[in-house]
């Protein structure tokens, strides 16, 4: 049987043969977001995993704070912080195996770093010395890039290709609530379901697309309800509950790996900071709303659980904080060094071989730079 063969098919049939292909009931999300922390389910959670998640959350928060500080110091052009969303970022990275692929959206630097990419290389796009700073193949992380939802079909294509090759690789693709409105979201989910591609779609519903609240983005019962329209399961999860997000994503990844096809996961969370450092969130939302969400902080939720169960003492907390500080200090130090740039790189990678036209333009720039350099030399003497 080829990969493309369907195991059943919704095809119009005249009565009495009518039969819808898929039972919709199992595809529908639960009415309430799934939660682990503070519920009975928490007892089942692996303490080691919870501690790992905790250390990563602390590190992630510190990264967000540090990167935002770097924008103020002019070391970063712009930073879209994921403060408040660290549980999603970290769980997305941790739910994957090494051979799997992560397809981040532009806000997901944390997930990229949690997957193993160098914290400085992950910031190249936002620092502005190049577009993608890391080798996508090294940690199997697709380039961070801004056109929203466009990465979703890439994830589907990659997962499909892996399956065709016989590799049990899963792709996890991230997108925001706003991004679900784009046509590419729709096309990607549909291709994934038709091809039964091993992809997990993680929507971080953080309440806003820049200034536009969710109610102006969708009228759906939940974003997870979109899944049934593609014929894949939809799951709703508390996006600030790291254990819950991790569990739901891990299940979806396993399901995909075993040939069960794609899943759409909506993680309900909140963007605590402004859209980016350049945004003024007071123009479109009040403090009160932010405050209710601060009460539901992903780090505190996990800390409370771990502490209550005696799994986290002051030492462990301190060592998580210390590790985060080491990361931050290193990030700061390295970001404070000026990037070394070669303008000739502009021409190096447009094509495998520069066209004759580009070679002409390269020669023009080289001559200009040499003249500039000569001028400066002259001035220096």
């Amino acid at each position, binding site marked *: 049987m080829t990969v493309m063969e369907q195991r059943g098919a919704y095809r119009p049939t005249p009565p009495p043969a009518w039969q819808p292909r898929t039972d919709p009931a199992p595809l529908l999300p639960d009415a309430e977001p799934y939660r682990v922390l503070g519920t009975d389910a928490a007892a089942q959670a692996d303490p080691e995993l919870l501690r790992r998640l905790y250390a990563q959350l602390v590190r992630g928060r510190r990264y967000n704070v540090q990167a935002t500080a770097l924008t103020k110091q002019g070391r970063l052009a712009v930073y879209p912080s994921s403060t408040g969303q660290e549980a999603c970022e970290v769980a997305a990275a941790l739910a994957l195996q090494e051979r799997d692929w992560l397809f981040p959206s532009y806000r997901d630097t944390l997930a990229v770093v949690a997957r193993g990419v160098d914290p400085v290389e992950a910031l190249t796009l936002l620092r502005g010395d190049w*577009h993608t700073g890391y080798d996508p193949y090294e940690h199997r992380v697709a380039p961070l890039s801004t056109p929203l939802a466009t990465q979703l079909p890439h994830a589907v294509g990659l997962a499909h290709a892996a399956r065709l090759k016989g590799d049990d690789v899963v792709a996890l693709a991230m997108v925001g609530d706003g991004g679900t409105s784009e046509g*590419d979201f729709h096309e990607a989910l549909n291709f994934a379901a038709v091809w039964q591609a091993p992809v997990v779609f993680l929507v971080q519903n953080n309440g806003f697309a*820049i*200034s*536009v609240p969710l109610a102006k983005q969708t009228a759906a019962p939940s974003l997870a309800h979109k899944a049934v329209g593609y014929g894949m399961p939809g799951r709703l999860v508390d996006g600030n509950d790291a254990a819950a997000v991790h569990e739901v994503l891990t299940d979806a990844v396993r399901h995909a790996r075993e040939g069960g096809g794609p899943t759409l996961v909506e993680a309900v969370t909140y963007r605590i900071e402004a859209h980016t450092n350049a945004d003024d969130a007071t*123009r*479109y939302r009040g403090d009160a709303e932010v405050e209710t969400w601060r009460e539901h902080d992903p780090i505190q939720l996990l800390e409370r659980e771990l502490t209550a169960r005696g799994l986290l003492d002051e030492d462990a907390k301190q060592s998580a904080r210390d590790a985060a500080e080491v990361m931050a200090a290193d990030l700061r130090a390295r970001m404070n060094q000026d990037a070394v*740039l070669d303008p000739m790189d*502009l021409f190096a990678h447009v094509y495998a071989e520069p066209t004759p*036209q580009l070679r002409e333009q390269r020669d023009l720039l080289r001559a200009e730079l040499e003249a500039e350099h000569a001028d400066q030399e002259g001035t220096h003497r």
Partner: protein
Amino acid sequence: MTTVALKPATMAQALTRALRDAMAADPTVHVLGEDVGTLGGVFRVTDGLAAEFGEDRCTDTPLAEAGILGTAVGMAMYGLRPVVEMQFDAFAYPAFEQLISHVARMRNRTRGRMPLPITVRVPYGGGIGGVEHHSDSSEAYYMATPGLHVVTPATVADAYGLLRAAIASDDPVVVLEPKRLYWSKDSWNPEEPQSVEPIGRAVVRRTGRSATLITYGPSVPVCLEAAEAARAEGWDLEVVDLRSLVPFDDETVCASVRRTGRAVVVHESGSFGGPGGEIAARVTERCFHHLEAPVLRVAGFDLPYPPPMLERHHLPGVDRILDAVARLQWEADN
């Protein structure tokens, strides 16, 4: 003559004012796009419009550019005049099918029965340190699409005038707003009565005898600066600001080139397949025997727009323009 206190406004403010005046004058004018309502747009060009005219007149849409332009088509079919904002140049691409296959063609398709008076505002170009996909110069795509008008202001006054003219036009108009001029100011006075010039007229920004710089949008100030610098080299450069790419003002451009006998086209967009080819070709067709040298082009390189830290090497600057002027075969002259 009474003296009026000069209130310098930025180009962004002039655009806001144009939208406000248009909305006040005509209840069928509706603004829509991502973040244009409460936030007033990421460049604040729609600032205050939702508060003044209500959310039904200035509407935050879902995040979907084809949907924005596609619904605008339907609104225009029903007699409204939608003004659509594309948040950044590169984020207009998802709307290209609607733009090319419908916006540009509906009037012609229906023999004039269903005109679409839609204005598409596109903040475009680089020079603001934007990350990838935030600095594209996409005018070549719009120019190659018959049925669209394409305008781009270089001054605060033109920003007001061209946007008003675009909204008043019964045809679809793409207004390319140079991002890096959003915060520029000149002597435009919002308190004076405003005139709305017809679309399609270039203007000579600086007269000169030696050669003509043909340019538009963000490159106009650069060309004016180059013209100043050129005086030191003994060149007296004329600068023509096209303002409208479609329709193209052959008359003004050719009158200038016939006078100077030399021309350089300057723009930020890539060179290959960019606007400069069309401009150089049509000027040459019309002024061949007046030309002392081929029309040259100074443009962005033919590559994806560079990262912020390298963009200054890409953007046509004064030196590169002067180098091109120097190549205009002056020896052959006298």
